[in-house]
């Protein structure tokens, strides 16, 4: 019994310690004036590997999710003779919820895990230590460009996801199932608010981008520098990011749309 309580206490202390380290890590990463001459090319390279290389999975997923939404929506709405509202349904679902959330989950699986593995491997092969010994801060040189690239990429990817999803919904709803095109777009236009729906979706994806990238770079930097340690850190990145996204989504939705 005492052992169980002691074990619980140890786990609690470990979790609090990790939280404290991650906060200090974030502060040290973001502190200081960025050097534009050195930082801009590093940021551009990371925007390419984190953002541009995630485009394929985001576009394909967005397309299929939009198509499935239209198909499911048509089946339900046609029972009530409201299939004209399919554009409105697809757009609201995507910009408010599925765009930010699914993009964040895909981001955690593709870019987040890659970030953790890359930084973890740099730690295991002493590349971060050698950088420190050359008088170069790895937090500014390695971590900061990756953090900012993730933070910038996520909202853009979420917007692209939603746009492609809406186009996929149009393909199924209008081209295949024969919903009147004018009704599809005009219902969408009249019911989707830029400030309330689109911007709230963008705010969600900004928050998710911040949290997912923070988790990914911290797990890589803080990992045990062995193959098992990197593997464990990569798994933690995906699990923690997914749980954080789903939990935060509920909180943000409650604040934005729940009337709190």
């Amino acid at each position, binding site marked *: 019994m005492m052992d169980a309580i002691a074990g619980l206490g140890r786990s609690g202390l470990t979790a609090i310690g990790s939280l404290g380290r991650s906060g200090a890590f974030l502060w040290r990463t973001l502190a200081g004036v960025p050097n534009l001459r050195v930082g801009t090319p590093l940021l551009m390279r990371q925007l390419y590997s984190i953002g541009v290389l995630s485009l394929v999975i985001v576009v394909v997923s967005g397309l299929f999710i939009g198509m499935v939404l239209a198909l499911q929506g048509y089946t339900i709405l046609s029972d009530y003779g409201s299939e004209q509202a399919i554009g409105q349904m697809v757009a609201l679902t995507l910009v408010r919820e599925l765009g930010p959330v699914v993009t964040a989950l895909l981001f955690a699986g593709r870019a987040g895990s890659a970030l953790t593995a890359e930084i973890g491997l740099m730690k295991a*092969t*002493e590349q971060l230590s050698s950088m420190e010994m050359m*008088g170069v801060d790895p937090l500014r040189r390695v971590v900061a460009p990756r953090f900012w690239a993730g933070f910038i990429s996520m909202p853009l990817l979420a917007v692209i996801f939603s746009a492609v999803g809406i186009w996929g919904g149009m393909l199924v709803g209008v081209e295949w199932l024969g919903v009147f095109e004018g009704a599809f777009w005009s219902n969408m236009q009249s019911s989707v608010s830029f400030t309330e729906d689109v911007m709230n979706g963008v705010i969600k994806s900004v928050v998710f981008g911040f949290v997912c990238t923070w988790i990914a770079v911290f797990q890589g930097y803080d990992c045990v520098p062995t193959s098992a340690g990197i593997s464990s850190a990569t798994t933690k990145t995906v699990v923690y990011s997914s749980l954080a996204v789903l939990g935060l989504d509920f909180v943000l939705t409650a604040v934005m749309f729940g009337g709190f």
Partner: protein
Amino acid sequence: MASSPYISFDNVRFSRGEHTIFDGVTLDIPRGLITAIMGPSGTGKTTLLKLIGGQLKPSSGKVTVAGHDVSTLGRKALYDLRENMGMLFQSGALFTDISVFENVAFPLRVHTRLPEEMIHDIVLMKLEAVGLRGTRSMMPSELSGGMTRRVALARSIVMDPELIMYDEPFAGQDPIAMGVLVKMIRDLNSAMGLTSVLVSHDVPESLSICHFACIISDGKIIGQGTPDELREHPSERVQQFLTGQPDGPVPFHYPAPDGAGDWGLSGVSG
């Protein structure tokens, strides 16, 4: 020791959790000479280099490098001091996503605003010094272990540091690569007037090039002096390490409970 100390350890203690790595180490490393730090695996030789570089801070005591107390330096001052240090890591620690040329040019690009032509010339000179000018376009994954360390050595001297630290430079090297590294460490030290700290457990190679050596075991320095003085050292522990005896003051068996209990022989009478 004829030369003044470049690095001083003053009663340094360092622990990880409940495990004491250094227990009151006092050591002076002379300027402009090669000092070998030797000892069995796991005695904290690499930790000693990290204390010199300020990557770790001692639990108590003082580590002084070029007159600066490393553990009290602020971030900027520490990073400035490190620009005068080079370190050759055991794995080489080359950046795997850039070429050999860019690896060697990395410190120059970060710390200086030299024109590209000058960076080109300096990098090729350093690569020439380690005999690898022809590998400039190769990626680190295309190099052998010995070549990786030589490129890493070129990178660590590209800023013309005052101090260079070698972490197990001979580990896992074939005899030719080892001979090349021994020659380069000796030549670089004399040609550039470097202070060199060599951490190794390869006794013959280390003693063949160092001017001064010390042996660490169980968190303490058990012997120090010139290579000749160490060979004549009266301590049995020092002699066991230098001659590679499997048993002695450092026992072959790790402490264990009574064997009869482990094999279920307790109570069995002869």
